[in-house]
């Protein structure tokens, strides 16, 4: 018999419905990943015990681990499904939606909270306008090499899912947003909003909620130095808070 792959997938029809597990057995193919496995299921939606079912709902787009869409829990770990090669996973492969974000359907969850957070911390460079104003500020290679890794954040939210402090009780903003504060506060023009960004990270749900579990940096698919960004930003927040206090 041809070599097969077994996937256990957690299904949920809508946000109100109860979840259930379905098991699928697929013919193994070289280079197979969790997304290509789910594409196979869509072309032949039948469970392992022969029951017809529906194609699985999940978010995906680039399949190159750069758009940030297909984040889910695979064998319990927050990661991107496109780069989860089946050959490197223990079987049966357990596939679940993120647990800390509202489920839309099956593996698709609502991660809009991150984009709202990016608005709150003004994660942009305040340019005057798009007309031609000549070259930007000079940036030396060493500075570029600091900024570039952080700017590769794909907003997948793996760092938030894995963080023990990211929950409804703390309302913690999460590592991704803090790293973006670090990025824009370093930029020669982005700096202009430094004060506002740091203030947005003070108080409940702010940077102080971080418990240094370091799970974020562990799961980040882009190897962003998240813990360093948090500690660097944490120092800045404390400095800013003191300044604000004495000015108060």
């Amino acid at each position, binding site marked *: 018999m041809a070599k097969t792959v077994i996937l256990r997938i957690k299904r949920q*029809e*809508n946000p109100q419905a109860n979840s259930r597990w379905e098991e699928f057995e697929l013919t193994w*193919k070289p*280079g*197979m*990943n969790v997304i*290509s496995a789910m*594409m196979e299921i*869509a*072309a032949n939606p039948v469970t392992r015990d022969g029951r*017809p*079912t*529906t*194609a699985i*709902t*999940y978010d*995906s*787009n*680039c*399949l*190159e*681990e*750069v*758009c*940030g*869409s297909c984040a889910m829990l695979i064998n319990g770990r927050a990661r991107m499904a*496109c*780069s989860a*090669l089946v050959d490197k996973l223990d079987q049966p492969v357990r596939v679940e939606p993120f647990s800390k974000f509202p489920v839309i*359907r099956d593996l*698709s969850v609502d991660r*809009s909270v991150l*984009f709202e957070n*990016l*608005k709150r911390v*003004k994660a*942009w*460079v*305040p*340019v005057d306008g*798009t007309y*031609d*104003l*000549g*070259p*930007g*500020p*000079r*940036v*030396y*290679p060493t500075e*570029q090499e600091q*900024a*570039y890794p952080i*700017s*590769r954040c*794909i*907003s997948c939210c793996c760092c938030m899912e894995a963080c023990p402090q990211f929950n409804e009780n703390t309302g913690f903003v999460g590592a991704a947003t803090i790293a973006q504060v670090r990025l*824009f506060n370093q930029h020669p023009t*982005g700096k202009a909003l430094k004060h506002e960004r740091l203030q947005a990270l003070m108080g409940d749900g702010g940077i102080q909620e971080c418990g240094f579990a370091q799970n974020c940096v562990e799961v980040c698919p882009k190897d962003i130095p998240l813990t360093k960004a948090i500690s660097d930003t944490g120092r800045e927040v404390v400095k800013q808070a003191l300044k604000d206090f004495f000015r108060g």
Partner: protein
Amino acid sequence: MAATNPRIIVVGGGLAGLAAVIKIAEAGGNVDLFSIVPVKRSHSVCAQGGINAAKNLKGEGDTTWQHFDDTVYGGDFLTNQPPVKAMCEAAPGIIDLLDRMGVPFNRTPEGLLDFRRFGGTLYHRTAFAGATTGQQLLYALDEQVRRYEAEGRVTKYEHWEFLSAVLDSNHVCRGICAMNLRTMEVRTFPADAIVMATGGIGAIFGKSTNSVVCTGSAQSALYQQGCYYANGEFIQVHPTSIPGEDKLRLMSESARGEGGRVWVPKTKGDKREPRSIPESERWYFLEEWYPKYGNLVPRDVATRAIHKVVYEHELGIDGQPMVYLDLTHIDRATLDRKLEGILEIYEKFVGDDPREVPMKIFPGMHYTMGGLWVDYKQATNIKGIFAAGECEYGYHGANRLGANSLVSCIWGGFVAGPQAVAHAKGSAKSTDGVSSSAFDAEKKRQEEINSRLISSSGNENPFRIWRELGELMTKNCTVIRYNKPLKETDAKIVELLDRFNRINLSDKSMWANTSFVFTRQLYNMLQLSRVIAQGAAMRDESRGAHYKPDFPERDDKNWLKTTKAYFAPDVDEPRFEFEPVDISLIPPRPRRYDMAK
């Protein structure tokens, strides 16, 4: 009365869409931005190598005219020249703007922008941010749009899919009809003008380097509503992609721009490990055939060369359709600084370290030069509909040069946005004054399509029809084309369209039903694929990416013209017209890459 405070709809949140949004907001307009995915996840993130602009920071005497000439020549003279000239002149300013917005471009020791070489030029003209330039550019524009969103100037409709334009009784566009991808609600949205920026059509070829959302469904819907679709037969096959089960992952041209060399073992069936094969037993066929440009010939040229080596010389690695792309002679630090993003992709998806082992690559469908027909103001032939980016046909002729897509997206958006505002302000009648019947009728038409599909009870699976379409199009409508198979392809698509009528959806629910959404897209893909196949069958010449061995030469006398397809609803198929190309600035000359221009 004209709209005083125009409301513009932008469909698509990649580089072109976001560029248009920013210009409209800056001009005082309000924008409703529609996107299937959160805009930050659009396909522009996949662009790797860089963005072209003749900044001439390497003392080579590069000029915007040279960029213009390379682009027109690379496109085998099929492009209307004035808009390309305008784009190349604007490009250096666009780079400066992106730089000001905080794009972490690679730098020289002096702190200036660094530039690398790309295909189809002899100049260092490509600015880059590692090997994830598209991602960095998209984020910069996304951040500026978020700023306007926070100010209330932009409203995002993410997880909404464009279904059709709302046209009034004079065939003027007055808004769009769209579907919420979670609630499946169908709704119309009024606007004084719309800008389409819906990207590529890769899904028509099954597997491609494109993202999942690049189905061409929106362009096809508009084509079926009366928009011209131009030069559909011009499909770019990228020479270096990584074959995969779910997609063909791009291996950027920048790998060759930084010195990567393409080769195969000289002996058929050589089973040796690649690094143990001595130089003298390797065939660097691009360098041999094209001494001036070497590995940096344009994509169509490199792709045909690889095909020739694999299928005619039968020298594919281990008898497989693959050749080596070798970076192992370049030091690790340089590779990591300039190419890390793409090396990481290869490492993660193939499992080998390309710093140590030559990569195995093969050509894959990558880009459509064709798209919605637009004039020099990015306006389609339907009043009120503008288009920018890959979904339109205007800048790349018969073949696009590497690193020109990012600049054409941003430039196209920068033109389309203000033109849409100008159209809205110049209209005799604003959309507010249009009766609701056009909106009601379009909504009803789309809802009927939905209920037909949901209640359809045949035995056809949409994903299997899609696979067949993809295999057919890849086999007959990509690198090498013959008339007989092209005509058979069209006949086969008609069969697939017939089978589509007997589709049975396994999922009939009306909540986040992705296979239902996909099936809707599939119908539009099938309609558009006929434009590609028929257009290719008609064009009896070879030009840029369109290559017919039976007609191996470019034929300016008969074919220096733009193909314009339009949909004939009475017969449910495309009809064709042809339009002369504006060659007012650079007279056509033979395109050769085995010598300097």
